[in-house]
Structures are given as C-alpha cells and as structure tokens.
C-alpha cells in the first residue's frame, strides 16, 4: 500500500462519477419520453485489504445501473387500459349516433309521426278536400324520409365499425411483431450481460398500447422476455421472440369474422369481447343492430296498422283495397324499406268508409285515432307510436350518458395508476440536478485526491534529491 493506491482510488473515482453523470444525463434527456423508467447507479465499495495493518477498502465501484420498475403497476395499467379502450370506443360511437335521434332539439321521427296522424285529423273535417289530401301525402313523405334517414344512418355506422376492423387488426399485428422483436433483443442482450433497460421500457410501453386495443394477460420470464396471451380466448399472442397474428375472414363483406393464428399454432375464429376490438364488435353486432331493430319495429307497426285500416276504406271514386305504405314482411329492414305504396295518389287516399259516399270521414277518423292506440309490440303492454319513440330516445340518451360517465371513471382510474407509475419511475429534474451537483463535487474531490497524491509523490521525490 502506497501513494499509488491513493492515485488509483482517485482515478477510479473519476471513472465512476463520469459514468454516474452519464446516467443522470440520460435520465434528463428522457424526461419526456413516454414509458421511460428512470435509472440509478448503484455504487459499492471494493474489496477490503489490510495491507496497512487496518482493514480499509480500496475505493468504490459501480455495482449496476438499475431501472425503477413496478411489475404490479404494469399489470394494473394493462387491465385499466383495456377497460378504458372498450368504454372510450363505445362512448365515441354512441355520441356520433345520438344527434340523429335528438328529438329534444330537432323535429325527427317523433314529430313526423304525430304530424302525419294530425294530417289525418284535418282530413276528418273535409274528407274529400284536395288540400287536406295533399297534406296527408306530404306528411307521409316526410315520415318516409325520416325513417329512411334514421335507418341509413344506423346501417352506415354498422358498416363503418366493420370496416374499421381492418386497420385495427393491422395495427395490433404490428405491435405484436414489435413486442416479439424486442423480446428477442432483450434475451440476447441479457445473455451477454448487457444493459437492456431501454428495450424493456419500450416493450412495456408497447404492451400498454396493445392493452387498449385488446384484453391481454402477461407473464414475465426469467430471461427478461414477456409472454403475452389473449384474455378473450387464452391463446398465445407473443411467446418469446415469436408473435401471432389476427386476420379477418371477409367472406361476408358486411360482417367480417376475426381470426387468430397463435405463434406456432393453427388459425381459429375468436370472439373479441374486450378492448377497442371488443367494443367495435359489440357495436357492430349488438348495440347498433338493437337500435335499428327498435326503429324497424316502429316502422313496421305504423305500416301494418295504417295499411290494415286504409285497405278497407274507400277513395272518393269508390276504389278500395289500396295500401297506404308499401307492406313490409319481416321486422328487419322495415325502416329502410318504408315508402308510400305504389298506386297511392291524392285521389286514391281512402278516407271514406262507404264506397258510394265520398264525404264520409269514418276511415280517416279511424286512422287518425291510431295515434292513441297501443299498437307497437314492445313486450307487454304494447305502446303508442309516440311513447315507444320517446322511450327509444330516452334509451339512447341513457346509453350515451352512462358510457360518458364510465369513460370519466376509467380516465380517473388510469390517471391515478399513471401518477403512481410516474411517482415510481418518472424522472424528476430537481432530483437529477441534485445528483449532477453531487457527482460533480465527487468528481472534483477525486481529482483533488490525484493532485494531492501527486504533491505527496513530489515531496517524497524531493527528499531523495
């Protein structure tokens, strides 16, 4: 043990504090990188020697460069993001549908229905009047337009949801591929005892991104890789450095079927229930078709009940058996096919209940009274046209309201988890600056050690001269 040991310890110090400053600078540089976890330098003292007669360590060294990471938080974030992805997609689409049925602000189907039957009321006062007949025709046309528009709107939404499956599965597939690729690189780096912290961060960020689109479960392996499984079917999505892929069976162009090929497995149909993919499927297959069905039920009910009465009435010239609206077969498509029947003109509207009496208003009165009849089959008891429709409007309102509320809760929950993650893994500039000062001082001190040792060496050499 001599002066050279002090020199050696000083040189070591310069080295480790340079590395420490590098880690700090990396932390500072990545302060805004999404998914970055701050890293810290772990120092340790070197082995103890007793060459001076006292047990003293011969300087310090870097044990490792660690990242702050909480795997439980990562799991919770993955789950929360899946729920948020589902609810956000559903809420966005529902909010797009709502304005078409905003009967509170605009006159829609509800007003068109009551105006149509009010036109029949006017006709009861002058059954043969051409003005009154023309008004009935015009009101019927407006009602037709409203039904067709509502039906087209909902059908378009279904088509858009279906088409959006293509870019969504493409994006999921590329994320899966990237995760598998990073897994491979991490595995290699870990084998070579290298530092894979940045790659781990990138992979974990990709997993969080993926969890918005589909529900997943993850398993962390000892070699640093993470396996990803599909929560809705249990099938593997990423296994080590191999990834699976989603595909679409486009046999039915209006309703694609989602399929999954796990890594090394066989193609199979899956039913996505969670995440954005699950929400898109639910909107396409259940939620929007359910709205459409209600509009169709109303349209069919109006068509049938008006036709029933109209076809038994008589036109001013004694004609009978004329339908008012084109008869519809099944409930599905009733609103889309809602139209004024062929052969119905101002002259063939059947207001009279008697072939010989053009001034009779009994049929017009009977049709006008349909407004207050419980004709729409909505379980038991059946409802009037307007109450059925206002319930429908209120149902859409409720759906939108509750989905908005769920999204707000999801956002708050995710935010809380992200705050916790940030608290643990986020970079604090103040902290890094403090560290920088600390490391700078230590570096200066190490340099002072070297100059001091040099002075001591000079003193010793001077004695010899």
């Amino acid at each position: 043990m001599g002066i050279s040991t002090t020199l050696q310890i000083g040189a070591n110090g310069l080295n480790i504090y340079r590395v420490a400053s590098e880690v700090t600078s990396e932390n500072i540089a990545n302060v805004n990188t999404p998914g970055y976890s701050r890293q810290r330098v772990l120092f340790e003292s070197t082995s103890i020697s007793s060459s001076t007669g006292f047990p003293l360590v011969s300087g310090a060294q870097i044990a490792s460069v660690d990242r702050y990471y909480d795997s439980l938080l990562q799991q919770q974030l993955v789950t929360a993001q899946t729920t948020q992805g589902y609810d956000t997609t559903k809420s966005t689409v529902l909010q797009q549908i709502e304005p078409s049925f905003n009967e509170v602000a605009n006159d829609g189907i509800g007003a068109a229905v009551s105006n149509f039957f009010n036109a029949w009321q006017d006709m009861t006062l002058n059954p043969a009047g051409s003005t009154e007949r023309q008004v009935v025709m015009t009101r019927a046309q407006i009602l037709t337009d409203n039904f067709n528009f509502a039906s087209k709107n909902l059908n378009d939404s279904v088509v858009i949801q279906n088409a959006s499956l293509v870019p969504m599965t493409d994006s999921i597939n590329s994320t899966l591929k990237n995760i598998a690729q990073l897994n491979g690189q991490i595995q290699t780096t870990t084998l070579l005892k290298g530092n894979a912290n940045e790659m781990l961060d990138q992979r974990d960020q990709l997993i969080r991104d993926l969890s918005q689109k589909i529900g997943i479960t993850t398993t962390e392996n000892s070699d640093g890789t993470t396996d990803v499984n599909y929560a809705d079917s249990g099938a593997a999505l990423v296994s080590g450095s191999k990834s699976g892929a989603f595909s679409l069976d486009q046999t039915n162009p209006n309703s694609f079927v989602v399929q999954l090929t796990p890594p090394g497995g066989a193609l199979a149909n899956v039913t996505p229930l969670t995440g954005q993919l699950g929400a898109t499927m639910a909107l396409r297959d259940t939620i929007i078709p359910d709205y459409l069905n209600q509009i169709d039920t109303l349209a069919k009910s109006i068509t049938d009940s008006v036709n029933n009465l109209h076809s038994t009435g008589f036109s001013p010239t004694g004609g009978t058996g004329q339908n008012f609206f084109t008869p519809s077969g099944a409930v599905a498509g009733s609103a889309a096919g809602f139209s004024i029947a062929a052969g119905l003109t101002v002259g063939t509207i059947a207001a009279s209940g008697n072939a010989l009496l053009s001034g009779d208003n009994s049929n017009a009165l009977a049709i006008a009274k349909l407004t207050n009849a419980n004709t729409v089959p909505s379980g038991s008891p059946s409802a009037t046209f307007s109450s059925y429709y206002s319930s429908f409007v209120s149902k859409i309102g409720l759906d939108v309201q509750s989905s908005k509320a769920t999204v707000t809760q999801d956002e708050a929950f995710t935010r809380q988890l992200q705050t916790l993650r940030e608290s643990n893994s986020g970079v604090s500039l103040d902290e890094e600056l403090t560290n920088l000062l600390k490391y700078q001082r230590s570096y200066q001190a190490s340099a002072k050690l070297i100059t001091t040792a040099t002075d001591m060496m000079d003193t010793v050499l001077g004695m010899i001269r």
Partner: protein
Amino acid sequence: MRITQNMSSDSSVYNLQQGRARLDRLQNLTASGQNVSTPSDDPISAHLLVDLGDKVRAINQYSSNTAKATSWMQFTSTALQGMSDIIGQAKKLAGTINSGSDDPNIRQSAHDQLVNLKKQLVDMANTQYGDQYIFGGANNSSPPFNNTDNNYAGDGTQLSVEIGQNTTQTMNITGNRLLKGGGTNPNYGSIDILKTFDDMIAAVGDSTTSSNVPAINQAASDLYDGSKQLNTAVSDVLSRMTRLDNISKFNANSKDTMLSIASNVQNVDYAKLGVELSQQKLAFEASLSATAKVSQLSLLNYM
C-alpha cells in the same frame, strides 16, 4: 410520495381540462338557455320533454279540429235560423188565410208566396260549407234537396271529429232528420216539413182553385209542429257548440299546464347559473395562475 415535474404538469393539464369543461358546460347552458340539449344530458327529462312535445302537438290538432267544427256549427246554426224565419212567415201567412178566401187574387198571392218560401227553404237546406253540403250527410256529390220533388238525396251519416283524446263530437245535422222527420238517434220530430208546405200550397188553392179550409188548418198545425222540430235541432246545435267551447277551454288549459311543466324542466335558472359561472371563472383563473407560477420553479434557476 415522490413528485416529479411531469406529474405536476400532467395534473395541471388534467385540472385545467376539467375546469375548462365545466366552464364550457356553463357557457353552453347560459347561451342556449336550455337544461336539456341532447337526450344524454338528462334522459329522464328528455323522455318527458319529447312526450310533452308530442302531447302539445296533439292538443294543437284537437284545438284546430274544435275551431273548424265550431265554424261548421255556426254555419248550421245560421241556416237553421233562416229556416225558422221562413216557417214563421209561412205560419203567419197561414194565419191570415186560415178560413180560406173567395178572392182568387188573394188565393193566388198566398199561393205564390208559399211557393217562394218553400224554394228559399230548399235553398237553405242546400247550404254548402266549403264543398260539403252541411245537411247532406256524407254525400257531397249532389245537393240533398231539389225543387221538383221532396226526396232527400243525401244520406243519414253523422260525421264525427276527434276533439280530445278518444273524444269525438258529431258535427252535422242530416237533412232527413231536419226536414223529413226521419232518422233515429237523434230524432227531432216526425213532420215532413217539405210535404207540409206542399199540403199548405194545395189547401190554399190558387186563382182557379178554391181553398180547402180543414186542410189549411191541418197544414198550419203541422207547420207549428215542424217549427218545434226545427227548434229542437237548433237547441241540439247550440248544446254541441257549448260542449265544443268547454272542450276548447279544457284543451287550452291542458296545453298551458304542459308548456309550463316543459319550461320548468327545460329552462335554466339564470341566477343560479350566474353564480356558478362566476365561481367557476374564479376557480379557473386561480388554477391558471397557480399552474403558471408553480411550473416555473426549478433548481436550474439557482445553479
């Protein structure tokens, strides 16, 4: 808990967003004056509002029906009044000649007057409202009466209109009930007024035919009954008009009630809104100022 700059700025952004959203909502409410602009704002109120809107439209229609039916009744009432006057004149004429007359000129003059009165009666019975014959039942293709025979060409249909939910009112009085003494439910009497006129004309005689005193008396008595028949019809019309009047008042009241319920639900309370708005504005300004001040703090400023 360890707090980083990013956490502070994230939560600043989140809170500013929340504050901005609340301000936006209040601003929307103030500008529109409506509590419910979309069904999702308040689904239950939206249901109520849509329902009320529908009911108000229905009541407007019932009011319009009532108004039209009322003017039909007024037309009917005027025509009936005219008919009553004619029968009154005929009765007076019958009174002056109730014991017949030997003067061919007087007989001829009475005969001519009666023939004219009958023509007027038939004209009134053919009164039209729009293109409908008000005493023709459901037949509006030809006049119900003519001057050549006493047959009724209309039919006995009673036209109804809806004046309230599931409440209908008969609008017309058919010619057969009024002038022919026929029909049931309602029935005003059994006198064929047109035939009575003819009987009277025949009984009075003319310049060449002498009067038939017992027949004049019989016809005069029948005319008296006929005028009672008309009066019964008049009072029927008046009672219907009274009912329409009541219904229209009821409809107007219901409409007022519904509109006031709707406006209670729909209209915002500006005083409350103003207070909330100024509170929210203050909170938002505070959060802006705090964000600007706190986010400038950094160790860098002191190094």
